[in-house]
């Protein structure tokens, strides 16, 4: 299954190479993210799913290649232009990343207070509307330490959409959530995408949740996109790797065993040594 060309990409990653130390995380990676849809980037842990989000947002610099967001090369922008571009991007971090010294209301109000001069009479209803959208208007006085993991993520989501961005990135939104918070988040991502006309990019390895909302999916493995298409395309795929990943088989193209020397030889060595 090849990367199909997308008619109206909002994000284009072109020939991207990125390494950490001597380890190459991405090698000549190219893909596009369509405008106005929910796109999922999936892959096993440690394939650099979070890294790709940070590269797109310009928090990390690639060794080679470019990332175009709305036609602008993210890594060639001056700091101020980059910050301007970031105002149209929201990111939901895995941990929520709420500022621990501010309460829920102030956390959501933070981007507005930093970037606008709105008086409190206008600011307050705006924040309450965003909190209402994530169902936490009642929790506005709580401190981040008093929130459950799922609630913290919802507050962070309210904060991510407070500047009315065009693109929202979700970094592992479902990791470590109970079934109810998972359901809430799945619904929120879908609803917000529709009502705010967003482009959503969800990075995750929770197959069922992601396939239920995504309109376009890329599967990442060992620094490359190994498959992409609609959820139906992937479910009907005849690639062994895609099948193993989506159905969660323990063994397959991704071996159950970490590379090691021959099992029998290894045991014999021990017997000889003793």
């Amino acid at each position, binding site marked *: 299954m090849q990367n199909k060309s997308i008619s109206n990409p909002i994000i284009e990653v072109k020939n991207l190479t990125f390494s950490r130390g001597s380890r190459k995380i991405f090698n000549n990676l190219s893909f596009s993210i369509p405008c106005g849809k929910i796109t999922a980037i999936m892959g096993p842990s440690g394939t650099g799913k979070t890294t790709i989000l*940070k590269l797109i*947002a310009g*928090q990390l610099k690639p060794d080679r290649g470019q990332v175009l967001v709305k036609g602008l090369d993210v890594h060639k922008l001056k*700091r101020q232009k980059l*910050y*301007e571009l*970031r*105002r149209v*991007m*929201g*990111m939901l*971090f*895995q*941990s929520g*990343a*709420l*500022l*621990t010294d501010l309460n829920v209301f102030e956390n959501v109000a*933070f*981007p507005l207070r*930093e*970037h606008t001069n709105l008086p409190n009479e206008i600011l307050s209803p705006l924040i309450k509307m965003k909190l209402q959208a994530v169902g936490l208007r009642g929790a506005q006085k709580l401190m981040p330490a008093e929130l459950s993991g799922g609630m913290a993520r919802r507050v*962070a989501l309210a*904060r991510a959409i407070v*500047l009315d961005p065009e693109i929202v990135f979700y970094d592992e939104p479902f990791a470590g959530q109970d079934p109810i918070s998972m359901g809430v988040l799945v619904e929120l991502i879908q609803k917000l995408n529709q009502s705010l006309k967003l482009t959503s990019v969800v990075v995750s390895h929770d197959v069922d949740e992601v396939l239920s909302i995504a309109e376009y999916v890329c599967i990442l493995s060992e620094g490359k996109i190994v498959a992409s298409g609609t959820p139906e395309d992937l479910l009907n795929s005849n690639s062994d790797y895609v099948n193993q990943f989506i159905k969660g088989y323990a063994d397959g193209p991704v071996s159950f065993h970490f590379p090691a020397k021959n099992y029998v030889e290894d045991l014999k060595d021990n017997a000889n040594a003793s």
Partner: protein
Amino acid sequence: MQMPVNFLANIGSLVIGLLQSIGKALFFMTSIIIVMPYAIKRFNLLLKQIYFLGVLSLPIILTAGFFVGMVLSLQGYLVLVDFNSEEAVGSMTALSLIRELGPVVTGLLFAGRAGSALTAEIGLMRSTEQISALEMMAVDPNKFVYAPRLAASIIVLPMLSMIFVAVGIIGSYLISVGWLGVYDGFFWTQMQTHVDWNNDVINGIIKSIFFAVLVALVSLFQGVNAIPTSEGVSRATTKTVVHSSLGILGLDFLLTVLMF
């Protein structure tokens, strides 16, 4: 042939590593210093840090100052009484406190109490992705997080140092006049004649400004470069205290040579 080549290569990589980290530190320092005016504009952020770094450091500074003053005058008295010049104990304590012990001991205590807290705070902010989140919200952490902390340190440490000196002198007065029986008229007049405003007091304040910049930059730099795990943050905290304490002692020697 292999051995000496390896040896040379190791030295080379050490030097390159060292230069790289110095470069990184200098780059970090400049990037904070150029946004310092912003810290003053955002007065509420600055005020919060002044409270956190300054007001909360007061108990340890007051206690330490009091005891250092008392011990200084006890020891000084024992030496001076042999020469029948125990009245000089006042000026001796005041000069050692104002010139050396005030700035240096306050700096060391500040590194232990506030510097370590700064490193841990920044390290944890990074490991919980708060710094990344700020960047994503198009808020520059240099302006919002680091500059107010540096500015607050520069404002607070000279004040703490002066408070330390004042409390130390009170401690010294209680011991020498109240307990050892030094005549209090002599105690104060000796101090007045020997302590000079420009040479002693101003120089002491200049010293503590240097120490404040040093401690704040070391703490912030260690926090920013901490490996974002619990072990990494604890190591960075230790490094902050060790590096800034040694830095204070070294810098104090240099400044003393230049000033007095």
